[in-house]
């Protein structure tokens, strides 16, 4: 999966699960302050990402360090590469 495909799929998760407008989905956006997610939403986000990409990320400690949408793109890319 290319980088752009991963970005598109992650954005789809935000649009489908959280109904966030496409225009807001920029890599620099802080998922808490700009997009309004809270710690419980992160659990839903992880589940949605797992379903979308078919990977297991729930127990990964690096999730705690995620702050921006760009961090999620990067994290998902790393997990995708690891799953290959």
């Amino acid at each position: 999966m290319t980088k752009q495909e991963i970005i598109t799929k992650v954005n789809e998760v935000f649009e489908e699960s959280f109904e966030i407008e496409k225009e807001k989905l920029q890599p620099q956006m802080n998922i808490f302050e700009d997009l309004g997610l809270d710690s419980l939403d992160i659990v839903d986000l992880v589940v949605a990402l797992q379903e979308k990409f078919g990977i297991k990320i729930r127990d990964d400690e690096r999730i705690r360090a995620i702050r921006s949408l760009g961090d999620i793109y990067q994290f998902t890319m790393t997990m995708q590469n690891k799953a290959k």
Partner: protein
Amino acid sequence: MYELKLVCLNTIFYLSFIAFSMISIPLFVLFITSLSLFVSKRLVMKKFRRAISWYGAIIIRLFPFPFIRILFKDYEKKPLKGPFLFVCNHRSASDAFLMSCIPYECVQVVNIWPFRIPVLGILARLSGYLNINKMPFEKFSQRACELLKQGVSIIAFPEGTRSGNGNMGPFHGSIFRVGLMSRCPIVPICISGNEKIPRRGSLLLRPGKIKVHKLPALQWKEYKYLNPFTLKNKVRNIIAGELTVMEAQG
């Protein structure tokens, strides 16, 4: 002239507040303790919460009058049977006292600091206020659902902390998840005008007019198709819209 008003307001308010608390709280504890010998725990808790509401109403409505006026508006045409989840914007420490306008048996979802206030913190704990910072979500939701089953409404400030500057912060979703689980109606509450009563980090009260608007309840059947994230933002938008109107009216 304004300085004189400020001195009068704060002197009268704080002296009355301290004197009233010193007299009423021991009497109130004595009354509740005596009552608990004769009636069920549920009834004691009901009276306890009613007394706290009266205490709050006297402090926020009577003592600062006429320097601070509270204008309460209920958009519900006829009173509905509770319980409800009341969801409110949070600008000042006076918000907790302003909740005495709500004519239902309620507990509040609070942060750690209200529990640390001498005496009042103990009363809050005894009356079953929920400390969101000390509870994992599972425990919080279980306790909240138990209270709702008993007919006790819950008041939450989902911004989590006082915004101070009047701009509403993002909402936390816990209370909305409780709504989806319990099927309880959600009632948005809007408070405007108390940003400086008192300002965050200060105890100084400033004269003004505080408006509290209780908006129509959002029934479970209206929001059951929404996920917690969408629901919290829907309620946030309702509150933000009403606040814009309230502030435009002055």
